[in-house]
């Protein structure tokens, strides 16, 4: 049924309100990031900056080397800004590694759940449904103490392993039902041709599961990129910081620049926002699959 007349107008209006709500924070961040603090404080009521500038982005992306007009005099730039390249690299390395590792580990386990179904494996699956609820905050203390004991504090690997562990259950929950939905007959035919089970997984199941793998991969990447607590607790040196940790470290009192903060937030959110918009279909499917199927 096509809605008509004033209902149509109402629906457009409702959509505009929703769109405005969703975009408002991004507009606010841009507004803050594209001007200096001087301009922000010179007019505290308007919605148009006195002067627009890209200096905030310039100083961050150059690691403090290019200061532009705003920061020319500022001798007290936060030290961590100078380590921004570490943060960008760390965040990328960690998110990519966690995505790859969880895809591999989850695929292996999901295959055993879908095809082998021995009792202990089903039990493991049950634990995973449960484990996905465990919030990081609950485990941060034992995780810190455990990783400290194993000498894994202040290392990229520690964060990768911890995040992999936290995101693995989610993948098994998404992938296992998907693998199970692939007809067993395909496996059987291949096995009669002499393929091993592992080859079946590699040659048949995985290629047929690319949509599910893409869904899960995209979701893992986003969560790994955005996570604050795990790298915050496990790493405290600037060389090992991820972008969210660096952002959190700039919140403190020492010479924080608000507009710089808005710019760095935009830099941090850009990759994941672009990723989910590009892979929209997969993310949508993955999110609903992860919640409903068990």
């Amino acid at each position, binding site marked *: 049924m096509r809605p008509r007349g004033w209902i149509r107008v109402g629906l457009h209006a409702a959509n505009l309100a929703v769109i405005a709500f969703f975009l408002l924070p991004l507009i606010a961040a841009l507004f803050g990031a594209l001007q200096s*603090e001087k301009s922000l404080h010179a007019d*505290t009521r308007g919605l148009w900056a006195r002067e627009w500038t890209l200096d905030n982005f310039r100083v961050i992306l150059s690691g403090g080397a290019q200061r532009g007009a705003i920061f020319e005099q500022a001798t007290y730039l936060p030290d961590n800004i100078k380590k921004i390249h570490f943060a960008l690299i760390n965040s990328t390395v960690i998110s990519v590694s966690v995505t790859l590792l969880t895809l591999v580990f989850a695929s292996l386990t999901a295959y055993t759940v879908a095809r082998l179904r021995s009792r202990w494996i089903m039990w493991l699956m049950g634990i995973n449904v449960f484990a996905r609820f465990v919030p990081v905050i609950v485990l941060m203390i034992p995780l810190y103490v455990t990783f400290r004991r194993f000498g894994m504090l202040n290392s990229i690997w520690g964060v990768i392993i911890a995040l992999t562990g936290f995101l693995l259950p989610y993948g098994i929950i998404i992938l296992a039902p998907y693998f199970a939905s692939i007809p067993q007959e395909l496996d059987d035919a291949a096995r009669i041709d002499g393929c091993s089970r592992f080859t079946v997984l590699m040659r048949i199941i995985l290629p047929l599961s690319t949509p599910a793998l893409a869904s899960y991969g995209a979701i893992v990447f986003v969560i790994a990129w955005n996570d604050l607590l795990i790298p915050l607790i496990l790493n405290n040196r600037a060389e090992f910081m991820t972008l969210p940790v660096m952002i959190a470290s700039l919140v403190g*009192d020492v010479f924080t620049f608000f507009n710089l903060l808005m710019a760095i937030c935009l830099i941090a959110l850009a990759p994941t926002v672009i990723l989910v918009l590009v892979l929209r279909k997969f993310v949508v499917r993955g999110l609903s699959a992860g919640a409903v199927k068990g």
Partner: protein
Amino acid sequence: MIDVSQSSPFSFPNFISQGLVEPLDELPGAKEYLADLTDSAKQVAVYDGKLMGLPYFSTVWVWNYFTDLMDKAKFEPFGTYDELMEQLRKAKQDKVAEYPIFWVAGVGLEQLPGTWYQMTWNRGGVFFDKQGAHQLGTGSIARETLKWWVRTFKEELADPESLKAQFTSSAKAFGAGKNLYRGPNHHYDLNIANDQAQSPNAGKIKVHGSSGDGRTIGDTHVYFLCSATRDKAWAWKLLQYLGGKTKDGQYTQANNLARDAMLGSGYNSVMKSTAITEGWKPWGDPVKILEIWDKATYVAEVVPSIYKPWHFPWSDRINIEVSKALTGQITADACCDNIIAAIKEVQKG
């Protein structure tokens, strides 16, 4: 493992009691550093007679005022708290400013509590006496100070943003030029409020001493050598680079911090040098600030609990209770009673 770390004076005794800090006395050159420490720096860096750290920077608490609005209201900087209160009320009434005063009242160890400590000390009060008994009871100076402070919020003379303001953020907010006064704060904030590139009112923020005899508080942050370091010789070199002299025999870091960030130093020789008297000039009047400096006492004289391991959780409670008093959720009396009760709770550990 980390070799060298920095600490505020509030966490330092705690770190020491947990065994995280390595004494420095036996290390080459330590005696010379000790001899050059200011009295205030000594009170932080020397613990149980041992040198435990080298100074990162020192600061004292000062007031600020904004010349444009002061001229508009035709005020001279206040001399007493009564005078201040009258000015604030008049400025509000005459619509010179919606909120005539901005306080540093954000949660922290020396932000919101620091403001209270400073004004209490300035009025002649302390938080604990020499025997360790609290001085927060009915009629105490700390309690009366809090009541006075709460009034500035109740009468909407104080900017509500104060409760979120740390030192730097309050300096920036004050630089927007909407308030006449800024309450007690670290002297080096002038560097931010008077920065041409950052502040629309650069040059118009002036420093002002405290009421009465002008006594105020100060403190020193330190660098220390972590007891977990694997290479003590190397760590000592790093520590000296950060908190002592560089190879050329100069206090390079301290001099740079004075010139670039308007920080004070924990070394007498730096405080007397041109690094301070010339280095501070772009943002404030060094002579005037140094006069205030001479009237400053180390904050632990006011709040000796800094040396106790329970000071930290106790200041969490101070932050919470005083915030509640300032936002009108509880009375100043209830606030002080709660803080007194909290002493026992935090002492239990």
